[in-house]
């Protein structure tokens, strides 16, 4: 088993550059999630690790081996595809054993490894079925089984759960986490779903337009985002952002109809900034009239209130407990100033 190192990795399609020099260290046994909006290059980057996309520049190491120009089959990686990519003409058993068969392993060894994988994934009853006779979740398990059987150094998951329904997705998410604990191999996981990223990852890599925005443990990214993009991407519902202007040691925020005093080193007087506040970090005060409640979504344990400020900016806040606001109410906010995040309006970098 071994970690993965990316060294100034670049991908170009003709003149179009999609990956802009990525440096990344994934430790041995780590569960690393690539996350970002569609088109950010996360799948491309993983496919470069797999060898399915050629690396234009830079180096990829798996363990101590430079695999940049190595054939996909020789890299010691196994991949689980979003579409499962099972061989439709083979049974579950044959699907899982195909890689070993192609690499010339003896029949007994294939049999025992397939048996072991199907035990881990509870696929014993389906071994002689063809993929067409399986449900989505079972197919996904077979795809994972196919990866396990090959005993790779690195597992690659390319949005493996996006074709499943919501309930099954939660179930498989837990199963993948369990699998990682049981096998302990290095895993790279691509998703656009930040819940999957938060729950599964040891390390999250947030990507945007082929560049790394931030790398870190899930809670570190949540608590301490480097920039507005990461702040908005991690956490659900997303962080609220409103415009503000620096006035001495305070920030004037028109949407809040007043000034706030965040606990940060503010830039010079008159600078434009963006102030961020997470939906879960404030309480609605029904005696105020700063915001109008446009809409509420009651999910049971929690409700989300959609507020409009007099400036037209909209915000979302969470409400718990018995007293919840209704559309048409007017409210103001109670929050601790240390919960406020401030970003430079132009570079969108965090001001700490």
């Amino acid at each position, binding site marked *: 088993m071994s970690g993965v190192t990316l060294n100034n990795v670049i991908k170009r399609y003709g003149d179009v550059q999609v990956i802009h020099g990525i440096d990344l260290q994934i430790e041995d046994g780590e569960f690393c999630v690539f996350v970002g909006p569609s088109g950010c290059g996360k799948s491309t980057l993983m496919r470069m690790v*797999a060898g399915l996309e050629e690396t234009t520049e830079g180096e990829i190491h798996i363990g101590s081996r430079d695999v940049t120009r190595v054939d996909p089959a020789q890299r010691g990686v196994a991949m689980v595809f979003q579409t499962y990519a099972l061989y*439709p003409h083979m049974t579950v058993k044959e699907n899982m054993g195909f890689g070993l068969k*192609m690499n010339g392993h003896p029949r007994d060894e294939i049999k025992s490894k397939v048996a072991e994988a199907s035990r881990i994934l509870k696929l014993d009853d389906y071994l002689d079925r063809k993929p067409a006779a399986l449900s989505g979740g079972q197919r996904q398990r077979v795809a994972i089984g196919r990866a396990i059987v090959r005993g790779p150094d690195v597992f690659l998951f390319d949005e493996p759960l996006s074709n499943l329904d919501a309930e099954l997705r939660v179930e498989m998410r837990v199963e993948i986490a369990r699998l990682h604990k049981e096998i302990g191999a290095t895993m790279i996981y691509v998703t656009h779903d930040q819940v999957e990223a938060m729950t599964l990852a040891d390390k999250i890599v947030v990507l945007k337009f082929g560049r790394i925005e931030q790398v870190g443990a899930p809670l570190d990214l949540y608590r301490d985002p480097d920039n507005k993009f990461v702040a908005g991407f991690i956490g659900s519902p997303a962080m609220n952002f409103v415009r503000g202007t620096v006035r001495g040691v305070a920030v004037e925020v028109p949407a809040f109809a007043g000034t706030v005093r965040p606990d940060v080193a503010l830039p010079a007087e008159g600078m434009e900034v963006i102030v961020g506040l997470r939906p879960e970090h404030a309480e609605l005060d029904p005696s105020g009239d700063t915001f109008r409640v446009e809409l509420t979504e009651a999910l049971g344990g929690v409700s989300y209130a959609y507020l409009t400020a007099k400036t037209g900016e909209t915000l979302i806040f969470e409400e718990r407990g018995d007293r919840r606001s209704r559309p048409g109410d007017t409210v103001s906010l109670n929050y601790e100033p240390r919960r406020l995040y401030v970003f430079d309006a132009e570079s969108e970098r965090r001001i700490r």
Partner: protein
Amino acid sequence: MQNPRKPASRLSQTQAAWILLAPFLFTYGLFLIYPFFRGFWISLHDWNLLAVAFNPDAKQFVGLRNYERVMWGRNIEWGPLAAPFWQLLGIAGLAVSVLLRGTKRLSRFNAIALGVASVLVIILPGFHPGEEGRWYDRRFWPTVANTIVFVGLAVPGVTISALLLAAALNRETRAMGALRTLFFLSQVLSVTVVTLIWQIMFSPRQGLIANITETFGGTPINWLTDEQFAMAAIVIATIWWSLGIAMILFLAGLQDISKDIYEAAALDNAKGARAFWYVTLPNLKRTVTLVVVLQIILHFQVFGQSHLMTQGGPNDTTQVLVRYIYQTGFRDSELGRASAMAVFLFVIMGTFSVIQFIVGREKT
């Protein structure tokens, strides 16, 4: 005066269906069903084309005698070793089908198909004229054999070359698109043009093949008049001619196979030829069956190539069934016997159509 509107009379769905189907059913009946039964009716008569044309009563009902005249003979015997090669092959085929079915490596349908074919190969070549005996029509069975040989060479030839071409051209570049069109182009030529082109190609004097042979110091083969090469020449021209449709069908089948599967195969160490064998071919199984059966049905009807390139010769080696039917019916005016042969041909092709139908319904 008021004209009260009548409630629009409405057709039921069934009535509408019949009305919409009627033109098709009428045409189908007139041009396919009726001629078919008419042909069968003619095959039961001693029916001279010219005589009946001038006097409709000049035909005579003879029952199945035309079939006997064509397919049977005097003192026909059956021997288990009359044609040892074919009969042993049949026994081997039978053994293989039983063996593979026993070990479950062959589906039941395929096992039965192979078994039936093997039994036919054991039985049919066993018939031969005994002492003092002879076939009533000495040319019929050799003609059937020639046709089968032609089909046996042309169908695998077309299928394999079309499959390889399709696999090679299955890429989305402009050059590949142009090449696909180019390879398909031969399909739209008429048989006269195709045979003309290939007669020139095969010409021992100025033909391309002769030129190439001479460049390498060989003696040019007289393809079309050499008993050993005439059939091969016709098969080659046919393969070139009918490649296009098969290639298009294979391309369609190939594009149905998702790209992900090839990527998974690449990670599983199956690329190039191995990916083709383990991934492409099994997924193309239905398309291959379709192409093979379509080609069999098509090539049993071979006529133009033989008629225009070799005139059935040399020494009847390229005489094929449809050409023989044509000659019997329109040169010798023996319409009754020609129709009997046509019914025989229909049975063969009908069998393959049924196979195609059954295989098409089988689940993968």
